[in-house]
């Protein structure tokens, strides 16, 4: 046994006063299929119910069943619990529960732990029948200790075997019990949680898991000296706790959308799993199409027939949908497309986070195809932006792409319960007679906007076509008509841009450094900026939600900072590489785009390790940039 005393030597429960903490980051890491995620999600949910700020992020291997005890197979979850609102995954874990030693190597490679991390590791490997495994385990423990990690070897398997013949199923609830003791969680809430997650299973299974939960708690109470208290936030309003994909799904329902046409793709699919379970209760339906192309074609057909539909996909699916997206732009058919981004290109990193679809979303189609592109930055925005996207699609008669990413998709966070407004729902299909003298593309010369006839409207009969067409909707062969219709489609996007306000700056309105982000990096960037500002660094940040058209005022804002850097999770060439010059350097996507839009010499900080942005990395960036005494490179 390692640093922990044997249970037989310490039979009595001890009364330890919990140590108060502002926050803690906990990881549970295991082979795939050992239930680590269920354990962590439960810990997150229990903590949220106790009033804590919470952020959870899943650690997912790419394969469904990677080989056991493999470094690449690390599966699990990170839970960050705080006494304030938690907006991101944080830096190094404070405490990690390891079900074997090999998976820890995978996490070490991702820089998840430091010399302050406390580890509780399954000790059954120390007595494994195979010499090789015993040796691997012993080596690993030595290695972890050498890194400064405080390692406690604990008898998870032995303890669980007292209650169940198959600890592989059930050990996760024993661990949950252990964590509930360490973090002084409300046991009755934990029991409710266990009953809820196994609600579809038999009573015997529920009982077994409750016994394991209590056993883990009791064992920890007798054997573990760590005991913490993370006080609750002071929140007076009702909160909802969910992940980003559930939030998107509920947003789809709250937008009054009644058809989601999809094809399975990671990490977007769980949006539609949630929809498939609940959509019909609110008058909607999920169509699983034969492929990504058919999924958007079906949605476009339904939108054309009157009710704006939605299709949900990830990068490779977005690529397949581009021809239909171009048609929706050309034919001015309202449509919402959600892209839950993952690592690319091609099949890339299906389960990992990346923000590499920005330019594809804005510019991906052949020909000139302006449309609206939004990016949600929080789990709460995932909900509200679908409602916004549906309204914009109809008001501006255009497809709207809403970008999310794998980090938001599986992250869990509480946010204020939305107050459902029936105004959010789409209107019934207009079947009143069409005004005979109104053309189907009666573009307003000022705004480019026009009203569309819907099948069933008497007198409105017209034919949608992807061919160049004039206001009558008829195929046009005159060059002026093509120029004029392209102008009208572009003009309405400009008209929408006129309604946008300049973005709010986090921090002072001027300074030495401005960080610009988009999507799920919001929490990490702002946390780093706050930390740096407390140390008197003159740094601010701003976060973009309206990607196309772009929000106004950026040129003016950028001019008040000595340097502007985008922070993104996508690829960019690193300056300093002998092969890379300022001329051939490939910039991160937002940086590239903003350089073109504002003509500022904007720098970028980005990478494609497939990991969520963490505040520590952003803080290091700020420190590096502002201690070098960089000159104003924008002037």
């Amino acid at each position, binding site marked *: 046994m390692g640093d922990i005393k044997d249970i037989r030597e310490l039979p009595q429960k001890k009364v330890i006063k919990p140590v108060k903490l502002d926050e803690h980051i906990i990881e549970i890491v295991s082979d795939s299929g050992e239930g680590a995620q269920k354990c962590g999600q439960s810990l997150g949910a229990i903590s949220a119910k106790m*009033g804590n700020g919470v952020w959870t992020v899943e650690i997912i291997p790419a394969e469904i069943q990677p080989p056991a005890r493999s470094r690449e197979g690390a599966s699990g979850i990170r839970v960050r619990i705080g006494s304030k609102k938690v907006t991101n995954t944080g830096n190094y874990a404070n405490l990690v529960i390891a079900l074997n030693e090999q998976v820890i190597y995978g996490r070490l490679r991702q820089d998840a732990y430091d010399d302050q991390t406390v580890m509780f590791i399954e000790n059954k490997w120390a007595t494994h029948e195979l010499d090789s495994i015993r040796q691997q385990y012993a080596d690993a423990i030595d290695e972890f200790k050498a890194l400064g990690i405080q390692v406690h070897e604990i008898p998870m398997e032995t303890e669980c075997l007292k209650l169940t013949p198959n600890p592989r199923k059930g050990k996760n609830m024993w661990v949950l019990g252990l964590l509930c003791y360490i973090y002084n969680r409300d046991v009755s809430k934990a029991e409710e949680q266990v009953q809820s997650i196994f609600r579809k299973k038999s009573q015997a299974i529920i009982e077994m898991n409750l016994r394991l939960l209590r056993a883990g708690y009791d064992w920890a109470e007798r054997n573990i000296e760590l005991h913490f208290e993370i006080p609750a936030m002071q929140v007076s309003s*009702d909160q909802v706790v969910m992940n980003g994909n559930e939030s998107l799904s509920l947003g789809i329902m*709250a937008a009054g959308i009644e058809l989601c046409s999809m094809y399975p793709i990671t990490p977007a699919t769980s949006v539609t799993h949630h929809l498939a379970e609940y959509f019909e209760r*609110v*008058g909607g339906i999920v*169509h699983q199409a034969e492929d990504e192309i*058919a999924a958007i074609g*079906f949605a476009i*057909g339904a939108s054309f027939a009157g009710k704006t539909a939605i299709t949900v996909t990830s990068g490779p699916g977005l690529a397949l949908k581009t021809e239909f997206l171009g048609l929706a732009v050309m034919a001015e058919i309202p449509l919402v497309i959600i892209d839950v981004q993952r690592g690319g290109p091609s099949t890339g990193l299906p389960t990992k986070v990346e923000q590499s679809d920005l330019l594809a979303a804005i510019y991906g189609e052949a020909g000139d195809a302006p449309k609206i592109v939004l990016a949600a930055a929080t789990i709460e925005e995932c909900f509200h932006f679908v409602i916004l996207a549906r309204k914009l699609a109809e008001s501006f008669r255009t497809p709207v792409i809403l970008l999310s990413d794998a980090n938001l998709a599986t992250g869990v966070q509480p946010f204020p319960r939305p107050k459902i407004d029936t105004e959010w729902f789409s209107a019934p299909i207009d079947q009143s007679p069409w005004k005979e003298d109104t053309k189907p593309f009666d573009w307003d010369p000022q705004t480019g906007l026009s009203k569309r006839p819907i099948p069933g409207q008497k007198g409105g009969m017209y*034919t949608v076509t992807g061919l160049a067409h004039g206001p009558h909707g008829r195929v046009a062969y005159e060059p002026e008509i093509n120029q004029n219709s392209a102008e009208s489609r572009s003009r309405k996007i400009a008209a929408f841009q006129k309604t946008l306000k300049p973005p709010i700056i986090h921090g002072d309105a001027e300074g030495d450094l401005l960080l610009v982000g988009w999507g799920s990096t919001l929490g990490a960037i702002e946390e780093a900026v706050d930390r740096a500002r407390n140390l008197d660094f003159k740094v601010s940040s701003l976060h973009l939600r309206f990607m196309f058209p772009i929000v106004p005022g950026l040129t003016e804002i950028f001019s008040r900072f000595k340097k502007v850097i985008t922070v993104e999770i996508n690829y960019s060439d690193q300056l300093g590489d002998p092969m890379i010059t300022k001329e051939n350097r490939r910039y991160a996507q937002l940086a590239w785009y903003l350089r073109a839009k504002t003509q500022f010499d904007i720098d970028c900080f980005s990478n494609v390790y497939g990991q969520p942005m963490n505040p520590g990395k952003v803080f290091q960036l700020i420190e590096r940039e502002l201690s070098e005494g960089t000159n104003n490179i924008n002037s």
Partner: protein
Amino acid sequence: MLNPTHELCSIPMPDQYFGMDDYGKGTPRWCPGCGGHSILASVQRVCKDLQYPPEKTVCVSGIGCSSRFPHYMGTYGFHGLHGRAFPVACGIKFRRPDLNVFAITGDGDCCSIGAGHWVHAIRYNMKMVVLLFDNGIYGLTKKQTSPTSPMGTLSNTHPAGSVLPPINPIQTTLGLANVSFVAQTTDWNSAHLYATIRKAADHPGLAFVRIVQRCPVFMRDLYGDIATNKDELILLSHQNGIDLKPSALQSFKHILEHDPSNIHKAREHAETEDGIPIGLFYQNTSSPRYDLYGAHNRGMNTTDKKWALESLLDQYTIRNN
């Protein structure tokens, strides 16, 4: 327009009577002698005879010569992407059971670039009429081999003759899951063409009609003889088949009795090399329909919707007040 018989007759009559003109629009730009012209006239006549309100009728097409079709109909139309008429047509019908849907496609559109959608549209079996304009060649892009071009066809992509046997669309469709209506007709026998589309329009499901069509510009020889030589056509006849007047029957030399409920015989006839069988190969009026599933929970009112959504949010809620 009020029907003048209103005041003279106690039998309820429609308020509006649609004539052939109500279903037409513009001047077709197909070549002279193209089979498209007679198909257009037949569809318009079927719409008129069934008094489909033009505003409740949608013609959906892909890309190709055939797919110009919606532009010449006085109904709503959707001229979309190459090969993708089926997903759009299915999306339109899914939540709008009140709309009459025609899906217009060609041999390149349906059997090549959109073949994946063909397989699944048949399986969805949503009520609509599918017209496959099959002239055995790519016309709009000027004479490339089509998947239904006979082996040896000289084309711009196979100047020495095409090297693979063609797809037989009837045989293929009869092999697909949940197939419910398969018929074949020709553009030049207008009585049979009309009667086939009429039968298709009544079918409770997806009615797949392959129209053997002449292309006088690029495939002058393919069906040139058949159109004048009655020997090549074999009429599939049955009391449950295509309803032809006795006078129309006289134009056929070969008549074969075929029960359209027999899918095995239908597959046999589809494979014949003795001539071109026309008529109803197969019909099953009780195959599952995906459009009925799609329409089952439409039109929920906002009060119910709000209530359902609130109770759903309750599952995720932590009460703090």
